């Protein structure tokens, strides 16, 4: 579904990604784990077209999307939930969700998706008229994910969905990620919470200073001594 080949990205003089390559197959949950500044978010932003790349190729559904602008990818089903939620604070929950469906013209299907999203996140339904900026962190994360689902994604890029959330809420969010995946949405998940990420993922890649240093089945990564030591707290 998604194939990343030898991605090089610079921020000014800084060589942020030094040849990242990986594959996400249809229906999978794949996670990129690694420390702060390893290049995980940069990788996602490059895929979704927010950051230009210097070298390499991105194939989505067999076609090159290298250099395609972010706003043109949404209608192709490639949708990113940004780090730090980025909900529109001065707009209501409902308006945020409407914006998620911005590129869609099939009104009937959008309405069905709205019902599905409210089923998945009942708390958002209660708060649909509330301004997004007044929601709690967990609710904002749910809104950011719900908003992305409104665009009817085929491949969802999730950037640090657990950031700043209480452990109980993290579990809830991850359960929802699994549920979204079970409806046929492929997921690429970037996480610092490697434990959680590996527990729901099929496969994982470990990124360090702009390079993939390790890859494998989620279970075998979770059992790997080096990964345990570096990212799983022992």
């Amino acid at each position, binding site marked *: 579904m998604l194939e990343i080949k030898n991605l090089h990205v610079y921020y000014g003089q800084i060589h942020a990604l030094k040849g990242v390559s990986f594959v996400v197959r249809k229906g999978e949950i794949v996670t990129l784990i690694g420390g702060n500044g390893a290049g995980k978010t940069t990788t996602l932003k490059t895929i979704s077209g*927010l950051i230009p790349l210097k070298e390499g190729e991105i194939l989505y559904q067999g076609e090159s999307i290298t250099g395609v602008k972010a706003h043109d990818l949404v209608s192709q089903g490639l949708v990113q939930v940004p780090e730090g939620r980025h909900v529109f604070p*001065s707009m209501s929950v409902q*308006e945020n969700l409407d914006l998620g469906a911005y590129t869609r013209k099939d009104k009937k299907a959008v309405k069905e998706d709205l019902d599905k999203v409210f089923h998945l996140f009942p708390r958002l339904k209660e708060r649909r008229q509330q301004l997004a900026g007044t929601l709690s962190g967990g609710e904002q994360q749910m809104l950011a994910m719900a908003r992305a689902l409104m665009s009817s994604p085929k491949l969802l890029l999730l950037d640090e969905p657990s950031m700043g959330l209480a452990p109980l809420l993290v579990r809830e969010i991850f359960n929802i990620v699994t549920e979204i995946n079970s409806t046929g949405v492929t997921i690429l998940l970037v996480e610092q919470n490697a434990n959680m990420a590996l527990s729901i993922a099929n496969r994982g890649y470990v990124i360090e200073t702009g390079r993939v240093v390790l890859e494998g089945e989620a279970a075998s990564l979770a059992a790997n001594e080096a990964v345990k030591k570096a990212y799983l707290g022992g």
Partner: protein
Amino acid sequence: MAPLCLIKKEGVEMGLFIQQIVNGIALGSIYALIALGYTMVYGIIRLINFAHGDIYMLGAFVGYFALTTYKLPFGVSLALAMLIPALLGMLIERVAYRPLRKAPSIAVLITAIGVSLLIENLAMLWFSPDPRPFPQIFPLRPLELSGIRVSIPQVIVFITAVILMMALNFLVQKTKVGKAMRAVSQDKEAASLMGIDINRIISLTFALGSALAGAAGVMVGVIYPRIQPLMGVMPGLKAFVAAVLGGIGSIPGAMLGGLIMGLTESLVTALISSTWRDAIAFSLLIVILLVKPTGILGKSMREKV
């Protein structure tokens, strides 16, 4: 017939006062229309578009040529005076501001001043610097409302301004494109992740703001029938003050700020002296900003289109 003779003698002072309020509202709705363009553009790309007052001047000239040279009806002339400035606003954004999207804001600001001077001088070259009389389409005969004289042009200006502002409000609050505009003003990156083409929305914002300024140009021709190429300088500055006064980035703020500016000017002219008009109007800005730096309806941190 002299206007004040119609008012009973003991009512003269009060009558004059209310008369000036009527004048102030008419003038204020023109400032409000211009201020909206400043505030919308600021809301979306944090730029004070100093060429905005000149767009308003061009609106007046498009209206003038449409009405005189081409003898078009008023409605069509007004539409053209909105459409042509709208296209011009988009062109200016595309050519002068978009290439500087990532440049320091001071560079963009100086470019805006440059664009303003360019338009003013081209206008003097093409239209000649001499003032021209704006054709009087509406009868100057005043309407009498319990002693207060309201001229028909004033009523037309006020009603047109209200209709345009209601239309803008509907567009921004209720339509898909309005939601996209608010989204871009709140968070550009997230907006593009929704599939919103940010450049298109910015372009559209310039078009809308410029169309309103163009309409204001025609409105001012209707009330004060003299137009010339530098007519946009002072109203442009005052509308900018009005936008800041109301809270830059806020649409209701621009409307309110415009009205306050118009009323202040009109009342100062009548009650004190016209020499003090601008001094007091700008002092008002200083006072309000000292008390509330974000403007009357402005919010810190959160910004609306």
